[in-house]
C-alpha cells in the first residue's frame, strides 16, 4: 500500500526533530568509567591470584590511572548537568529504581577504594615515601594486611561499575537502540578491554604484556560475539528495533561504526596482538591506542545514535 505521511511538529531546542540532550560528556564518562573498572578489576584479580610480583604494572602502577579517570569522569558528568549547583541532591536520596542513582553511589564507593589501593603501594613505588601522620601509617598497615579482601571488594565494584555504564543506557525503554539487556555485558567487556589496553601500553615487562594480551584477545572476541548478537536481536525485533539496527546497516552511522569501532577498535588490534604473541615486532603502543580509540568511539556512537531512535506513532 502506498502511503503518504505528513506529521507536523515542534521546534524545541535539543528535543526536535530528534533528541540531542546528551553530548560528549556522557560517552566520555562511560569510557573513563569502563576503563577504570577494567584497570581496577585486573589489579584486584592478580592480587587474589597471588601474582603481585609478576604483574607489577597491573597491580601497582596502572591503578594510578583509575582514580584520575574516575575524577575526570565525574567532572564530565558534572558538566553534563544543567542544574549544576543542585548536584548534591544525588547524595541525599537513594532511589533503587534509578540507574543513575545507582551509578552515583557506586562511584562514591569505588573512587575512594581506588585511592586507598594506590596509596597502599606508594612506599613500594617511591622509596622513602612518608605519610607524615601516625594514623595514616596505621591505616596503611591495616590496608596492606587486608589487601586480598580489599581486592575482592574492588573486583565486585569494578564489575558493577562496568555493567552500570551499559545499564545506564539500556534502562531507557523509550530509545529502542539502548533498550536491550545485552548492553550491560557489552559495555562491561568493552570497558575491561580498554582497561587492559591501558595496562599493556604502560607495561615494560614483555612477559606481563604477553599474559595481558592473551586475556585481551579473549575479551575482544567476546565483544565481537556480543555485537553480532546485538544486531541479531534487533533484526528479529519489532519495527522500532529494526529501525534502530538500520542506522548501522546502511544508515548514517554505518561507516563510523564498522570502521572506527569494529575494524580499528576490535579486528585490527586483535590481529596485531596475535602477531605480537607469535613473536613478530609490532609497535607497543599501536594495539592499545586502537582499542582505546575504538572504545571511546563505540560509546560516542551509541549515545548519539540512541537518541535518534524512538517509538513510532
Amino acid at each position, binding site marked *: 500500500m*502506498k*502511503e*503518504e*505521511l*505528513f*506529521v*507536523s*511538529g*515542534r*521546534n*524545541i*531546542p*535539543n*528535543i*526536535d526533530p530528534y*533528541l540531542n*540532550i*546528551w553530548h560528549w560528556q556522557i560517552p566520555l564518562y562511560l569510557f573513563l568509567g569502563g576503563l577504570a573498572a577494567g584497570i581496577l578489576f585486573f589489579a584486584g584479580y592478580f592480587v587474589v591470584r597471588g601474582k603481585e610480583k609478576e604483574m607489577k604494572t597491573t597491580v601497582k602502577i596502572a591503578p594510578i590511572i583509575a582514580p584520575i579517570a574516575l575524577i575526570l569522569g565525574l567532572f564530565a558528568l558534572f558538566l*553534563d*548537568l*544543567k*542544574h*549544576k549547583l*543542585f*548536584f548534591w*541532591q*544525588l547524595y*541525599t*536520596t537513594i*532511589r533503587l*529504581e*534509578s*540507574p*543513575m*542513582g545507582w551509578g*552515583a553511589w557506586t562511584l562514591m564507593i569505588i573512587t575512594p577504594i581506588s585511592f586507598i589501593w594506590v596509596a597502599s603501594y606508594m612506599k613500594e613505588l617511591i622509596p622513602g615515601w612518608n605519610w607524615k601522620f601516625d594514623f595514616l601509617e596505621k591505616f596503611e598497615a591495616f590496608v596492606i594486611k587486608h589487601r586480598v579482601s580489599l581486592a575482592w571488594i574492588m573486583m565486585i565494584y569494578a564489575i558493577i561499575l562496568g555493567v552500570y555504564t551499559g545499564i545506564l543506557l539500556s*534502562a*531507557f*525503554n*523509550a*530509545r529502542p537502540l539502548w533498550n536491550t539487556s545485552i548492553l550491560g555485558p557489552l559495555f562491561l567487556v568493552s570497558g575491561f578491554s580498554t582497561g587492559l589496553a591501558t595496562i599493556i601500553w604502560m607495561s615494560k615487562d614483555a612477559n606481563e604484556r604477553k599474559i595481558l594480551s592473551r586475556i585481551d584477545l579473549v575479551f575482544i572476541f567476546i565483544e565481537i560475539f556480543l555485537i553480532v548478537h546485538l544486531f541479531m536481536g534487533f533484526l528479529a525485533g*519489532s519495527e522500532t528495533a529494526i529501525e534502530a539496527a538500520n542506522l548501522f546497516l546502511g544508515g548514517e552511522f554505518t561507516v563510523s561504526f564498522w570502521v572506527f569501532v569494529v575494524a580499528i577498535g576490535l579486528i585490527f588490534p586483535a590481529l596485531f596482538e596475535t602477531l605480537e604473541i607469535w613473536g613478530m615486532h609490532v609497535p607497543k603502543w599501536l594495539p592499545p591506542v586502537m582499542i582505546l580509540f575504538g572504545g571511546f568511539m563505540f560509546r560516542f556512537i551509541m549515545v548519539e545514535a540512541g*537518541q535518534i531512535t*524512538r*517509538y*513510532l*506513532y
Partner: protein
Amino acid sequence: MRYAMAIDTKKCVGCGDCVVACQTENNVPHGYCRDWIVERVDGTYPSLSLEFRSERCNHCDNSPCVRCCPTGASHIEEGGIVTVTHHKCIGCGACIQSCPYDARYSHPDGYVDKCTFCLHRVQKGQKTACVDVCPTKCLHFGDLDDPNSDVSLAIKDRSWKVLAPEAGTKPQLYFLT
C-alpha cells in the same frame, strides 16, 4: 482519583489555542511549549485522512521518567499527575531520555519542565488552561474514577486510542477517533 484527558481528534481543528493558553498560564519560556499540535495526513491522494492531535505529557500510570529520576525530583502528585520539583532537579536529562512522547524539555533555567495538568488550577477545582480555552470543546479533563466526570463521559460511547501503548507506560491521554 485518576486525572486524565480525552482529546476529540474529530473536533480538533489544530488552531493552537491550547498551546498559547498553556504558555501564558504557566509562563513557559519563549521557544518552548508544554503542549503541542500534531497534524497527520495519511493515505494517497485523493483518498487522504487527516488527524489533529493536541498532545502533552501523558501522565502515565507506569511512568519511566519517575522511575529513572536519581533525586526523586520527578514524582507523582495526587490523582496520578506527574510533576518535577524544580529545586530537587539536577538537570541530568535521564527523564527526557526516558519519555517515549518527548514531553519533557530542559528549561533555560536548568531544571526539567513539563505539563503539570495545571495542578495549581486543578487543586482549586478549576480545569486546565488548555481545556478552558479550547474553542471547539474538543478537550475533556477530569477524574476517571468518577463516572460522571467530563473525561469519563467523553470516552464512554466513543472509540479511542492511546499513543504508543507498546511502550508499556499506560498513558492517560485518550484520543477519541
